[in-house]
C-alpha cells in the first residue's frame, strides 16, 4: 500500500479489467439462452393474448427505411387457428409515454378493420397512476376497436364512437401516448400488409407518419418460414 508507482497502478487496473471482462462475457454466454427464451415465451403469451382465437403463429419480417433510424426490421406475427388458416396479425408497437418507452403487443383482425386486442409489454409509467394502462378496464377498450378512421380518445366520458377509447383519470398522458403510438404503427403495418403476404418487401415509411419521404433500398428482408412456434 506504500508504493504508488504508476506502472503498478496501471498493471493492477489492467489485470482487473481483463479478469472481469472475461468473467462477465463468460457468464453472459451462459445465461443468454435463458434470457432469450424468456423473451420469446413472453412474446408468445402476448401474441395469444391479443389474438385470442389463434392457436399458432409464424413470423414475417419486413425491412423498412426511415430517415431517423435508417433501416429497421419490422416483424409481423401471423396468427393461425386450429386448421392452420390465417386468422389475424399481431405486431409490436413502441413509443414514448409519460416517463419512458411504452411497448405493446397489438392484435389485428384478418380483414384489417379492427383490433383484436392490445397488451402492454414494457413501460415505466408512474406506479399507481400511469401503470393503470396495464389494467383490464383500460385494455379491454381495445377489443374490437375500429382503426379506420384512426383511433381517437375522449376524457371522462364513455366513448361515443367505435374507434374511440376513454382515457384514464390521472394518467391522460399515458393513454394519449398509447393512442398516438398505435395510430402511427397501424399505418405502417397496413402499408406492409397491403403487399403480397409473406413476400419479400421493402417499403418507405407511409405518408401518414408525416416523416419526410425516404428512399427505398433493394430488397433484403427475409420471410421466416413457419416454425410452428405455438403450442
Amino acid at each position, binding site marked *: 500500500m506504500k508504493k504508488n508507482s504508476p506502472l503498478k*497502478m496501471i498493471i493492477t487496473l489492467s489485470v482487473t479489467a481483463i479478469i472481469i471482462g472475461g468473467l462477465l462475457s463468460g457468464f453472459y454466454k451462459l445465461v443468454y439462452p435463458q*434470457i432469450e427464451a424468456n423473451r420469446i415465451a413472453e412474446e408468445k403469451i402476448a401474441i395469444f393474448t391479443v389474438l385470442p382465437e389463434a392457436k399458432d403463429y409464424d413470423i414475417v419480417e419486413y425491412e423498412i427505411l426511415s430517415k431517423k433510424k435508417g433501416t429497421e426490421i419490422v416483424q409481423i406475427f401471423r396468427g393461425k387457428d386450429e386448421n392452420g388458416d390465417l386468422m389475424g396479425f399481431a405486431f409490436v408497437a413502441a413509443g414514448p409515454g409519460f416517463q419512458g418507452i411504452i411497448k405493446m403487443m397489438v392484435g389485428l383482425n384478418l380483414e384489417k378493420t379492427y383490433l383484436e386486442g392490445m397488451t402492454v409489454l414494457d413501460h415505466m409509467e408512474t406506479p399507481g397512476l400511469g401503470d393503470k394502462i396495464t389494467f383490464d378496464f383500460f385494455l379491454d377498450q381495445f377489443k374490437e376497436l375500429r382503426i379506420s378512421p384512426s383511433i381517437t380518445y375522449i376524457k371522462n366520458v364513455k366513448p361515443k364512437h367505435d374507434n374511440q377509447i376513454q382515457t384514464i383519470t390521472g394518467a391522460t398522458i399515458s393513454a394519449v401516448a398509447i393512442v398516438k403510438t398505435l395510430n402511427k404503427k397501424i399505418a405502417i403495418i397496413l402499408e406492409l400488409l397491403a403487399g403480397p403476404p409473406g413476400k419479400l418487401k421493402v417499403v418507405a415509411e407511409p405518408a401518414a407518419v408525416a416523416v419526410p419521404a425516404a428512399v427505398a433500398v433493394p430488397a433484403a428482408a427475409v420471410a421466416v418460414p413457419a416454425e410452428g412456434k405455438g403450442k
Partner: protein
Amino acid sequence: MAKKTLTYEFVKGIWRENAVIKMLLGMCPALAVTNSASNGLAMGLASTFVVAASGLMVSLIRRIVPGGVRIPTYIIIIATFVTLAELFLKAYLPDISKSLGPYIPLIIVNCMIMGRAEFFASKHPVTPAVVDALGTGIGFTWVLVVLGAIREVLGSGSIFGFAFLGEKIFTPWVVMVLPAGAFLSLGLMIGVINYFTLRKRRAA
C-alpha cells in the same frame, strides 16, 4: 483495536449501525423500489449478494492493490457483481428483473456497498469481512421489506401481492405507492424509531 467477536460484527449491521435507518446510506434503492414488499425483498437480497461478494473479493486482494487505484478497483469489482446479479435475475427471475428495472444497475452507486468495502473489508481478513457484509445486507433487506410492506398495505391494500383488503372495505391511498409516499413513510419510520430510542435512553 479491541478484539471484537464475529457475532458482534454480524449483529451491528442489523440494528445498531443499520445502513438505512441509522447511517442514512443506500437511500436511493430504499425509496425507489419499495412500492411493494416483494420488490423490497428482491432488492435487499440482490444488494446483500453484492455487498457480501464484493466484501470477499476486496478483502482477498486488500494487500495487492496499490493505494492510488484502490477506489477504482473496488468500483469495478462492485460493478461486476452487480452485473452478475442483474443477468441472473434477467435469466431466472424475469418478473422481478422487470419490476426493479434500472434500479438493479444502480446498486453500484449504493454508498452502503462502497462504504463497507472501503471502511471494513479493505482492512479486515476474509471471515469478518464477509460476516460484516452479510449483517449489513440483512439489515438493509429487512428495512426495505418493512417499508415495502407498509407502502403496499396502505397504497394497494395487499401484501406480497396478496390482496387481503377488498376494494369495497378499503380505498387504497394511492399516494403511498407514489414517490411522495416513499419519502413520507421512510421519514416517519425513522422518526418513530428515533422516538423509541430517545425514550429508552432517557429512561436509562
